[in-house]
């Protein structure tokens, strides 16, 4: 291939890159607002599942603060309030299961009781570990109303490890990960209670 030829090919490839780049830039411009709005709706949806609507009159997605956890990571916390008084908080917690990270949304009331937990995303085995999803099994609903003292902290494990929570037949690692993560999430609440409830 001589020099001139290489130049032509380069120009052709460049022209295609430019053309498709432009096309994608335009599409991005057209969709960016709608995608943002959809993401907000999704977050509102998952929040409304872990914070009952009776306990707040604000929009928790808008009343968001960020806290730093032990490792210095910033955690967004959504505040639910009624008559300007904070009635509950919700935040994302991340644990590890059988096949990677399990993302959960945890809602906690002022006293540290679980208002609700939902799985946001996971990669567990279909038919086994995915029973942590609310639409597949009611297992995750059992956590509602529990706290670090109920059952006692040392019982926040699956039954196989001597704890109070049942695992699934054939899948222990997934529920173990979820129970441990919720416990860590509640400990986070206990540690940061004054900041979370605006009493600092």
């Amino acid at each position: 291939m001589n020099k001139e030829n290489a130049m032509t090919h380069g120009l052709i490839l460049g022209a295609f890159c430019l053309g498709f780049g432009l096309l994608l830039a335009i599409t991005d411009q057209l969709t960016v607002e709608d995608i943002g709005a959809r993401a907000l709706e999704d977050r509102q949806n998952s929040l409304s599942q872990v914070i009952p609507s009776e306990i707040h009159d604000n929009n928790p997605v808008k009343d968001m603060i960020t806290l730093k956890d032990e490792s210095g990571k910033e955690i967004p916390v959504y505040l639910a309030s009624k008559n300007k008084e904070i009635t509950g908080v919700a935040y994302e917690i991340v644990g590890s299961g059988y096949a990677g990270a399990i993302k959960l949304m945890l809602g906690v009331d002022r006293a540290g009781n679980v208002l609700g937990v939902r799985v946001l995303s996971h990669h567990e085995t279909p038919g086994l570990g995915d029973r942590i999803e609310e639409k597949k099994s009611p297992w995750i609903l059992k956590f509602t109303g529990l706290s670090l003292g109920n059952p006692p902290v040392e019982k926040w494990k699956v039954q196989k490890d001597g704890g109070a929570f049942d695992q699934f037949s054939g899948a222990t690692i997934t529920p173990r990960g979820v129970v441990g993560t919720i416990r860590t999430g509640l400990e986070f609440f206990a540690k940061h209670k004054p900041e979370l409830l605006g009493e600092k």
Partner: protein
Amino acid sequence: MTTTATAVLPIQAMPYRRIMRDGLWDNNGVFSMLLGMCPTMAMTTSATNGFGMGVATAVVMAASNLLVALFRGYITQEVRIPVYILVVASMVTLVDLSMNAWMHELYKVLGLFIPLIVSNCLPLARLEAFAAKERVLPSLVDGLFMGIGFTLALTGIGAVREVFGSGTLFADASLLLGPSFQFMEMRILPADMGVLMMVLPPGGFLVTGLLVVVKRMFDLRAGKAIQMGGAHSV
């Protein structure tokens, strides 16, 4: 004059019926060419998943076949592979962005599959084997029907794995297609009879292999020569 015209015709215009049959059965992307095995193994844990992946792939294949056929005069031999990859990746991103924005409910179910289309070599194979040399309309038809053939294959593999693995058929179809499709969701076997292996990766290899054999038995019985491995249909 007339003799040359009739002699030229069969080469230039491949009948559409033949293109459609090729995509759906004779030269099926999964069962005959054994292409696109990565999404085939990963996304066929249920019939609904397979169907979703197939539809998303069909859209991308039709669009990229169309574009490459349109620009085929400008794509030189030396740069064709990067251009094909560029076209497929752009189409995937385009579909991903617009579905996320305007068909969000569907995106929540299908969104998982769309980026995986880039890892599928079937679209690339059709660009190289078909769209690069054929006119726009036949290329569009080829992309569409290769995509539909891929959808049928994935739905079939998914259905077998789902029935034997979880005992259901088309579970969650209403999440993908809308509440009116709830009638499709069936339970074939009791829940505790499922063989977990079928949903795990080994089941994917087993079922795909068995279905390839079944397809070839049909072809043998029909007296057809078995096409194997080749991406070229002509």
